[in-house]
């Protein structure tokens, strides 16, 4: 009883926070209080006021505008990295489930292996060879998503393929692609949506960490991670500057995680036992 109520609350709060994130990012394309990268040295480190809701940073840039525009990178990285994970992960997972044998074994071994290289580590490797930038961050984070989605797809696909209706479809001579489209994909969709939501949250965290280290979004592209690293330089003068972007990251991630949990409960009660 309380579990259901909590699931409903998660879904509601998570959806609200995630929607707010999307709307803020969309808003940034048409309007921000100031141009986010506009430097205004005379008004640097201004306290929050009606003119500058969250004050200004060490270069006099409007913090509110940067926060609004910073949502863009987070969403861009999240969407593309999760997209990479879904496209390659679902494909690999389906191949593994349909082909079995050596193919399945080697794909799963490779997936285990990729776990040893978390997004941040791959990003550091890529950056040190190709130079820093959002693209490397996306590739690294996306690559880290692939094995997670692949494993989930394979496990769910295997259990679907073992059921009578899938066996019947095989017996009726339906090809693997048709079976995947008719039977497997609709069945794994709820689990994929849940996992994608959670990977989205993880991607936002990873992007923030990379940008904080200077390996992700480059100036003048506003990003929450970079704002934190800028804020650290003036920590003694204006600690508040380190609060806002971190809170923005935490709320976005919290929202997506809650949305994922809530969706899990709403879409498929059987999934609740996992995680």
């Amino acid at each position, binding site marked *: 009883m*309380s579990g259901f109520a909590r699931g409903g609350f998660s879904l509601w709060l998570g959806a609200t926070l995630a929607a707010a994130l999307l709307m803020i990012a969309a808003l940034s394309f048409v309007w921000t209080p100031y141009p986010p990268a506009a430097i205004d040295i005379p008004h640097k480190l201004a306290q929050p006021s009606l003119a500058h809701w969250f004050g200004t940073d060490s270069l006099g840039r409007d913090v509110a505008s940067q926060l609004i525009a910073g949502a863009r990178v987070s969403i861009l990285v999240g969407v593309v990295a999760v997209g990479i994970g879904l496209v390659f992960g679902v494909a690999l997972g389906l191949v593994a489930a349909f082909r079995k044998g050596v193919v399945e074994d080697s794909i799963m071994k490779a997936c285990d292996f990729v776990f040893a290289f978390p997004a941040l580590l791959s990003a550091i490797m890529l950056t040190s060879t190709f130079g820093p930038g959002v693209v490397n961050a996306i590739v690294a984070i996306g690559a880290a998503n692939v094995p997670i989605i692949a494993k989930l797809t394979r496990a769910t696909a295997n259990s679907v393929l073992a059921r009578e209706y899938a066996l019947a479809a095989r017996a009726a001579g339906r090809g693997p692609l048709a079976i995947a489209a008719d039977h497997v994909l609709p069945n794994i969709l709820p689990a994929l949506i849940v996992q994608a939501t959670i990977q989205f949250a993880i991607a936002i965290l990873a992007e923030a960490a990379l940008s904080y280290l200077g390996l992700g979004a480059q100036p003048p592209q506003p990003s929450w991670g970079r704002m934190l690293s800028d804020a650290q330089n003036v920590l003694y003068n204006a600690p508040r500057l380190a609060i806002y972007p971190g809170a923005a990251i935490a709320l976005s*991630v919290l929202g997506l995680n*809650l949305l994922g949990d809530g969706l899990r409960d709403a879409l498929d009660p059987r999934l609740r036992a996992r995680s």
Partner: protein
Amino acid sequence: MALYLLQRLAVFVATLVIASAIVFAVMEILPGDAAETLLGPTATPEAVAALGHKLGLDLPLYVRYGRWIAGLARGDFGVSYAYGSPIAPLIGASLAISLPLAAMAMALSAAMALAAGVYAAGRRGRAGDAVVIGLTQVGLAVPNFWLAILMVIVFAVWLRLVPAGGFPGWADPARAFGALILPAVALGVVQAAILTRVTRSALIEALDEDYMRTARAKGVSRRAALWRHALPNALAPVLTIMGLQFANLIAGAIVVENVFVLPGLGRLMLQSISNRDTLVVEDCVMLIAILVIGLNFVVDVACAAIDPRLRSRSA
């Protein structure tokens, strides 16, 4: 068990070989000529060729890979392009910070997760459980480097209890240890959130098993049944996740070291990236891969030590 160990060891070595090949490929084959990168676009082709020869870049790939691996095995990590000094001592000094930091964070998160997980599982569905779950949600959402910065604000900027960062060196163990506490907490709390959830759900699963009822039918108390019968059964999944999370912990350590200006592996790598000192980065990445793969090997063995079914399955 001996057969099982041999099997795992073979997998461990094979994984290391593949990992080294990937690292080598990404770091040395893809980027083109390291000498050209080092000298910049204004260098003459002759200078590039000379430096390339000096660095051994004109040798065939398999020779370079063989030399690199043989060097690693001997503890010879090569010479830093940027500093012109051997890399092994550089890495050694940074490991002296990063390894204790990782170990402290790991121990902290394990202790927190065990306590919170046992507490929540014992109160499944009640208020205490909901509070723990809520806290883990927060823990999962807070970036560890932001938590680190927040702690610097509280303890260094406001309370002025500790310096904002830096490392005094191990000559003074107490102060060195003290300098690692805040970073370890920042790293450990986030890990603890993940591990708490795993511990809780693994324990809940174990508590529902028939053997728990058997234990109670023998006269074992609820508490003793939880510790003696349920917890060992929950331990294997928790250990496995801990092993998998170790890579993330190291990655997190790289970022958190940066917040506290600790001269660990993370700082070394970031500096080397800006110095275009590829070999140092390559060695560090490989070292991390060895640590991660090695720890997962240990976890595999530990799980088999706990669960007799794992030992017999592979034999």
